């Protein structure tokens, strides 16, 4: 009976050691690049589409962690990643000015839209973004905000500012969800209210509801609603261990013709999402 106990122990330990080997084996690879990015690039599947092409063209194995822009910048500042792909230009410029990042290059943009109930009781359809926000405030229509310091949230705050309106932090009609984009859209729909979203998430939302969404696009196309994505290499002077050369190589590739075409051809549920605009 003692022997049976021993055998079970041996099996347990063997399994444990095998697992240990597995994870140790995967740990070391030469051309691995760690990227912090925003949820939108990951959730839309753009990076899943680009990663194999990157490997093919440059030999770089791209690994990314998708978070909010705030945390992505923080990860860069703490030297935990080698490169960033984010969409909050003022914060990015400050990041570079502070010496944390170098070689910031714009690669593409998508746009934000204001969505709301088809009945549009506030009557903002087709107006400029500035007018839309002014009307929403005047009518005290329910407006769902991410409220999570994400790139989208930062964009929204900048729009209030651009419209010369104070951010209605404490108004009862201004709902701060603190959740992801899709959850925020769902909350806006439940409350029969308005919200601002990136187009990619809206396409998904539309698809989830089999092309019959409760909330429709009411305001779009305004220059202020464009959402610029950039890549930034981590400054090797700030982080000695950052793989600057590899990051640089990736930046060259992604701003090159091949990658720009791939971005242009990338569609979500048959609809194009990103417009490449890298300056070559």
């Amino acid at each position: 009976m003692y022997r049976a106990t021993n055998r079970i122990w041996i099996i347990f330990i063997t399994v444990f050691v095998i697992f240990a080997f597995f994870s140790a084996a995967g740990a070391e690879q030469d051309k691995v690049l760690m990227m912090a990015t925003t949820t939108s690039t990951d959730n839309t599947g753009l990076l899943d589409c680009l990663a194999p092409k990157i490997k093919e063209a440059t030999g770089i194995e791209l690994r990314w962690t998708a978070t909010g822009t705030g945390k992505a910048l923080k990860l860069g500042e703490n030297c935990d990643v080698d490169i960033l792909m984010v969409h909050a230009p003022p914060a990015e410029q400050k990041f570079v000015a502070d010496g944390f990042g170098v070689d910031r290059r714009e690669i593409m943009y998508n746009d934000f839209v204001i969505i709301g109930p088809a009945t549009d009781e506030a009557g903002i359809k087709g107006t400029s973004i500035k007018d839309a926000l002014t009307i929403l405030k005047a009518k005290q229509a329910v407006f769902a905000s991410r409220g999570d310091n994400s790139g989208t949230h930062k964009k929204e705050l900048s729009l209030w500012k651009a419209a010369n309106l104070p951010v209605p932090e404490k108004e009862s009609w201004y709902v701060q969800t603190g959740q992801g984009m899709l959850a925020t859209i769902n909350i806006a729909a439940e409350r029969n209210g308005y919200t601002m979203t990136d187009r990619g998430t809206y396409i998904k939302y539309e698809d989830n509801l089999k092309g019959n969404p409760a909330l429709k696009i009411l305001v779009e196309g305004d220059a202020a609603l464009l959402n610029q994505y950039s890549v930034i290499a981590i400054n090797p002077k700030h982080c000695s261990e950052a793989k600057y050369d590899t990051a640089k190589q990736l930046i060259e590739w992604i701003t090159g013709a091949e990658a720009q075409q791939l971005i242009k051809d990338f569609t979500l549920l048959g609809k194009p999402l990103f417009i490449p605009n890298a300056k070559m």
Partner: protein
Amino acid sequence: MDFIFEGFLQALNLLASGNAETYSAIIATVTVSSYSIGCSLLIGIPFGFCLGYFDFNGKKSIRTVVDTLMALPTVFIGLLVYAFLTHRGPLGNFGLLFTLPGIAIGQTILALPIVIGLSATAVESMDQKLGVTIMSLGANRRQLFFSSLWESRHGILAGAIAAYGRVMTEVGISMMVGGNIKWHTRTITTAIALETNKGQFGMGVALGLVLLAIAFCVNISVSFLRRRY
């Protein structure tokens, strides 16, 4: 509602078709939870056993601290471990951030109070006469220790299962320390969070069911062991 049923079918499909992403997440989850449960049992059982077995000053205070730590929020542990493992943190040089061992460290911290607390309770609720019985049959100190440990195995096992459940299902640490990196540190729970964010509720349900299936297998084998020993 229909995404729940859809998720059920999808779960079967994922497992049957050998979906590489799903299996990568399963392997990551099982690996990291085995690591963390292994470490926390290795550290926690002796510590919990001593906490329950010996009487000393400040024992009650330690119990209170351990019981309080059982309520540690996973996101908080994640943040704490991140602070240590980030390249600018005290342990940054080991390069453990965004790795499975990094997650395992956090999960060990999560499981440890549960293992310690429940082992201590198991040992405390052990019959006082057991020590007399073992000693009267001629055990030395070491044999007394190990036999007492073996006698409290059922209670300790219950603690281990509770800890395993907590470790398998947590998402805060895996997300914060692991970074949800595809093919590497994406566990089932972080994958669920991602799929939910993407609006793929059905996929989220499917992955949840896969997690349940793993937990079911673990519990089946544990109850088989319990019946035999």
